[in-house]
Structures are given as structure tokens and as C-alpha cells.
């Protein structure tokens, strides 16, 4: 004993380190000495030894336990050595998820401990799992989320009634079902500054128009396109009772027959972005309304194909004025409240369009993420009216509230297109483009737009469809319901505006 003490003193001067060493290697040391004892003292193996029993009691700490009682020493040595092997075996089970079928292979043979014949798992049933030794697997449908401590009880090959089981603890990690975690929906308190409802929808019905005909003959009903938009607070806001930051607005000028659509996404990290997006939408519509009224004489004069450039110039003036005013109005609001303008950071997507005899003239302006596109299903046509602004990392984008956007990029961001006809002109915030397009490159792929259009028309897992027929009043409610689609990891506010 003295030799061992001396040796230990040599390897570590610190008392704690010796203790640590002994604790860490307890099983190994014990089984080593037990083995020695068995080899060199056969007499002791034949009859119970009081000291060994006492040791046995002490060994019942940690993850390995032996049934109390007096055992022959070789028995104990065997158990100790097995317990050591079991303890040091890497045994891990892949994580499960509540409500999702779980199935992992588990074969006792693969543990590579030949002296073990059987294992049972205690506590598996309680979490919805079963060990099936014949099928060599553990399977089931996990019911309880959490880190579950399960006891594996091993039987030695020569196990018989009354002999101890070797026990080891393993952890089964069961993840909660994110759909359940996301299902919390706390209404936004109505007394907050700049309150806005958690969802919004709007349908602008543009009634069919009678054509003039010639001398009262050949009059017919001419169907005209309608506009619809919906905006839904994201689940990420809903679980915290935080307001929707997105906004939108639609306007149809009855006299000049211009369609105006605006959507805006208030930055998630800007405190009052919900107001920024609201001001942006409202200001753009107000300025467009005013300017279109002022220019209505010009529009009726400039009908010919060769006068497209003139229309483009007017449109450029309207758009730049509207966007500039939106920026300025936000700036004024921020100043009045004594806050930096970036507290109101918002993206902005604007479209203006009108049908001429030669086709549809479409103008657009876009800053930030999301997307604007003119889509035609048959014959295929796609024109994306701008590029999403992104950075190296997710969530990095540009905003209407940034000085450079207004000082340097007001005009360069304007886009025009003239098309014979289209299925839909669509404006979306990134709450829709992220799940539906995934990447910036996909925004220019017509297959993705086909998929989106089919999705809107009911090809989705919830079978929610939007009836895009002429003058269909229920379309706004349907679109809002469609916006509630499930997409893993995509729980931002969602806004979409469609001219169809």
C-alpha cells in the first residue's frame, strides 16, 4: 500500500489531482486489483470475502451499479470488467422529433462485448419508443420533447435469476415539433405607438367596360384586370405579440385607367419600421394619384406606339416624385419624433401600369429584397423588374431610408416594360420570395413563377386556392389564407400584391 501511495505522490503533487485520477479510473483500478486477487488468491474466490462486499457497496455509485449482496470475487471481477467496457463504449442514438416516426438500428452484437447476451431499455415506452431486439432497432413515434435519460440494463451471457444487471445511462434527445412551438399567436397590443392590424387585405375591382362600337353597333363588354393584395404578420412576430412590419396599398385611377400597386417591408431590426413601410405605401399612392390626375390630358394624347418614349418620361417623373416624397415623408416623421431615420427603415416595391392599344405599359421601382415580376403563363413570358438587394450575409439588404438610394439611385432603379398581355403582375416582400424562390437566381427562372402560379391556384399541401377570375370578390380573403402556408425556417411577415 505504501508503495502505491508513494507512487501516486510522485505522479502528482496535488492532492486533488490524485483524487481526480482515482475517481476517473475507479472502475479500471478496481477491476485490475480484483483480477489480481482472483489470479493469486484462488481460495478467496471460493468464499465470500467481507472486504470485497464492502467494496461492492462503494462501487454502486455513478452509472454502473450492482445488486447489493455478497458475491464471489471472480464474479465481481467479471462484472467490474464488463461494467468498465460498457461504460467506455460509445453508445449514442440519433435525436428524434415529436410526432415524427423514429427508427434507428440497434444491435447488441455491434457493441462488440461478447460476454453480453441481452439488453433492455428502461423508460423508452414513456417517450413513445420501443426496443425491438428481433428487428434490431429502436422505433416508434416520440411523444415527449426533452433530454430523456434512459437506463440500459445489460445481462451477462451466464446471467441467471438473482444475479445483478449492469446498468448504463444513455440520453435520448427528442426535439419539439416546431409547428407546435410556432403555433402561439399573440395579438399585437392595440395601444402601442403606430399600431397596425396583424393582417390586411384589399381587392380593387375594376368593372368591365362597354366599348363604344361604331355608330352604336358592335358594342361589347370588355373585361378589365383587377388588383388584389394581402399581408400577414409572420409567425416570428406572432409568437411574441409583435406588430407586422410589412405594408401595401393599391390604387386604380378610374379616369386615366392607371393601376398602382405598392408593397413595403419594414426592417425587422428597425424599431418603427412598421410606420416606415406604412408611410412609404401611403405617400407613393397619394403622389401617384395627384400626378396621374395632373397628366391625364397627356395620356389621352399619347396613345400611339411611337409615343411610348413620351409615356416613359411621364412615368419616370411620377415614379421618381413618388419615391422621393416617400423618403422625405419618413424623414419628416423621424425628425418630428427626434429619432434617426433608420429606425423607420423599409424596403419599397412600386408598379404603375396601363393598357394601351399596343399593349400594357409597366413601370416599376424597387429597393430591397422581395420581387416584382410580369408573368405570362401561355405563351411563356417573364420579366423581373429590378434586382433584389442583398449582402454577403442573410438579412442584409438596402432600404428606402438610406441616403444613397435617394441621392444616387432614384433614377437607376426605374424599370419599364411593354407587353402584349400577362397572366399576373406580382409584387412580393421577402416573406414570400424567400420560401417560394429561395435564391436570387431563381427569381429569373420562369419554372419558379409557374410553380408559384400553380401554388396560388391550389397546388399546395393545404389545397388553398385563390380564384383569379374576373371581378371575383372573395379573392382577397383567399389570398390572405394562402399566405399562411408552412415553410420551415420562413416565418417573416408576408405580403403579396397581384394584378390579374
Amino acid at each position, binding site marked *: 500500500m505504501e508503495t502505491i501511495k508513494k507512487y501516486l505522490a510522485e505522479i502528482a503533487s496535488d492532492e486533488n489531482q490524485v483524487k*481526480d485520477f482515482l475517481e476517473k479510473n475507479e472502475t479500471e483500478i478496481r477491476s485490475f486489483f480484483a483480477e489480481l486477487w482472483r489470479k493469486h488468491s484462488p481460495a478467496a474466490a471460493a468464499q465470500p470475502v467481507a472486504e470485497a462486499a464492502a467494496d461492492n457497496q462503494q462501487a454502486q455509485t455513478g452509472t454502473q451499479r450492482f445488486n447489493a449482496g455478497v458475491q464471489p470475487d471472480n464474479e465481481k471481477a467479471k462484472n467490474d470488467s464488463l461494467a468498465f467496457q460498457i461504460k467506455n463504449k460509445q453508445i449514442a442514438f440519433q435525436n428524434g422529433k415529436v410526432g415524427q416516426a423514429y427508427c434507428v438500428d440497434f444491435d447488441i452484437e455491434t457493441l462488440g462485448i461478447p460476454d453480453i447476451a441481452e439488453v433492455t431499455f428502461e423508460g423508452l415506452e414513456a417517450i413513445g419508443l420501443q426496443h425491438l431486439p428481433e428487428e434490431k432497432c429502436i422505433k416508434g413515434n416520440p411523444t415527449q*420533447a426533452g*433530454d430523456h435519460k434512459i437506463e440500459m440494463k445489460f445481462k451477462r451471457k451466464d446471467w441467471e435469476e438473482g444475479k445483478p444487471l449492469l446498468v448504463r445511462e444513455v440520453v435520448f434527445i427528442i426535439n419539439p415539433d*416546431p409547428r407546435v*412551438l410556432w403555433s402561439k399567436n399573440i395579438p399585437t397590443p392595440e395601444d402601442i405607438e403606430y399600431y397596425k392590424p396583424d393582417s390586411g387585405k384589399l381587392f380593387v375591382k375594376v368593372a368591365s367596360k362597354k366599348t363604344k362600337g361604331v355608330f352604336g353597333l358592335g358594342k361589347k363588354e370588355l373585361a378589365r384586370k383587377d388588383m388584389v393584395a394581402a399581408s400577414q404578420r409572420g409567425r416570428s412576430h406572432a409568437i411574441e405579440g409583435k406588430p407586422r412590419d410589412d405594408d401595401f396599398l393599391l390604387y386604380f385611377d378610374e379616369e386615366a385607367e392607371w393601376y398602382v400597386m405598392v408593397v413595403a417591408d419594414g426592417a*425587422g431590426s428597425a424599431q418603427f419600421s412598421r410606420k416606415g413601410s406604412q408611410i412609404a405605401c401611403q405617400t407613393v399612392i397619394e403622389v401617384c394619384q395627384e400626378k396621374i390626375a395632373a397628366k391625364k390630358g397627356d395620356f389621352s394624347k399619347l396613345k400611339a406606339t411611337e409615343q411610348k418614349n413620351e409615356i416613359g418620361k411621364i412615368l419616370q417623373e411620377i415614379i421618381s416624385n413618388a419615391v422621393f416624397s416617400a423618403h422625405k415623408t419618413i424623414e419628416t416623421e423621424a425628425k418630428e419624433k427626434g429619432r434617426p431615420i433608420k429606425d423607420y427603415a423599409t424596403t419599397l416595391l412600386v408598379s404603375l401600369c396601363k393598357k394601351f392599344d399596343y399593349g400594357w405599359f409597366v413601370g416599376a421601382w424597387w429597393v430591397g429584397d422581395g420581387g416584382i415580376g410580369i408573368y405570362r403563363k401561355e405563351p411563356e413570358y417573364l420579366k423581373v423588374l429590378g434586382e433584389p438587394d442583398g449582402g454577403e*450575409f442573410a438579412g*442584409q*439588404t438596402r432600404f428606402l431610408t438610406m441616403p444613397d438610394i435617394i441621392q444616387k439611385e432614384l433614377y437607376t432603379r426605374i424599370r419599364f416594360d411593354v407587353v402584349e398581355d400577362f397572366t399576373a403582375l406580382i409584387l412580393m416582400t421577402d416573406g414570400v420570395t424567400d420560401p417560394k424562390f429561395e435564391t436570387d437566381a431563381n427569381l429569373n427562372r420562369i419554372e419558379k413563377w409557374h410553380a408559384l402560379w400553380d401554388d396560388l391556384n391550389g397546388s399546395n399541401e393545404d389545397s388553398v386556392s385563390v380564384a383569379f377570375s374576373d371581378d371575383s370578390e372573395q379573392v382577397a380573403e383567399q389570398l390572405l389564407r394562402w399566405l399562411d402556408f408552412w415553410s420551415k*425556417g420562413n416565418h417573416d411577415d408576408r405580403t403579396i400584391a397581384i394584378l390579374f
Partner: protein
Amino acid sequence: MRRLPVYLLLDTSGSMRGEPIEAVKVGLDAMVASLRQDPFALESVHISIITFDKDVKQIMPLTELESMQIPDIQTPESGPTHLGMALELLCQKVDAEVQLSTPERKGDWMPLLFIMTDGKPSDVQLYNQMIPEVKKRHFGSIIACAAGVKADTKPLELLTSQVYSLDTTDSTTFKQFFKWVSASVSVGNRSIGAADEIVLPPPPPEVHNII
């Protein structure tokens, strides 16, 4: 699906042996368990653990929370604290693991970095060389924590303005620390964007703000 990469650099030098490292393990388990209850985190957080003592190891590559199992953490009996080497490995791993946006791929959120040490870097020269390299990696936030009385906050202050200290390295303190890390990760998850820096939740009484 956008990922939020979270890098944890943990001191495993000799002085962490015994109770402190056991406390860290318990704290880590609690942190991960708590993050799993947050649907944001469950769907986006990816964690990597790098330990540093005389050796530097990435004991867990960037792994999604859903399939994560914290590996065992070993501590040598004694030896230096190679935090500089740890930062070097960190930069390599960030370059290899963190995805930037391309037209064909959605980039990750800006990564977060948490450093916990109970001493000071032994490889000072390398440590100082690595500071600008770490800064180039655009972490959304770098939170450094000096644990226990022997920890030196000065070198950490060169790396980040967010330096915190823990009075002791016992289990209660580490539990509170990792709980706070978990809350910070949750917040980081939803506030990255237009803001310059994430606003951390207030630290518990056991965690002191240095600057």
C-alpha cells in the same frame, strides 16, 4: 432556410479541470436544451465548439441544433492556454463552414462568437496577429467572457467591446452564463439586419460587463 452559425471557444486548460469543466458541460447541455424550445433557434441555429488548451480542437463542427449531441470535453492536467491558435482554427473553420450569399445560394446569418477563458492567452504574439483576422470575418457579435479571478480581461478587450467577467467558475455561475448565451443567441437570431450590432439581453448578476 437560413442558418445562424454560433461558434463557442472554450478554455480547457488545466485550471479548468474538475469542477469548472463539469460546470461548463452542464451549462452547455442546459443551453442547448433551452435553445431547442425556441422555434427560431431550432430551425436556424448551428453550433460549433472549439476547445483550447495546449492543443486546439474543433470538437464539434458546425451542427444543426436538431441533430446536435454535445461531445465529451477533455481537459489536460496542465499546460498553456493557446487562445491565439484557437482563433486561427476559428478563422479556418468560419471560412470553410459559413456560407456567404451567392445568386444560387442563400447566405447564412452573420455568425456569432462566444469565447470563455479562465486565464489569458499564452501565445500572445499569435493572439495579437489573429485579432484583425477575426475582425475580417464579420461576426454579428463577439462576446468574450473572463471566468474566475485569474482571468485577464485586457487581451479580450483588444478583440471585442463586449467583454464580461464571471467571479467564479462554479456550476451556478456557468449555468447562469450559458443561460444568458442562449438568450443572446435567440435575440441575435431575430435582430440581425439593419441594426449595426445585436442588442444583448441584460446579463444575470453573475455576469459583469467590463466596459
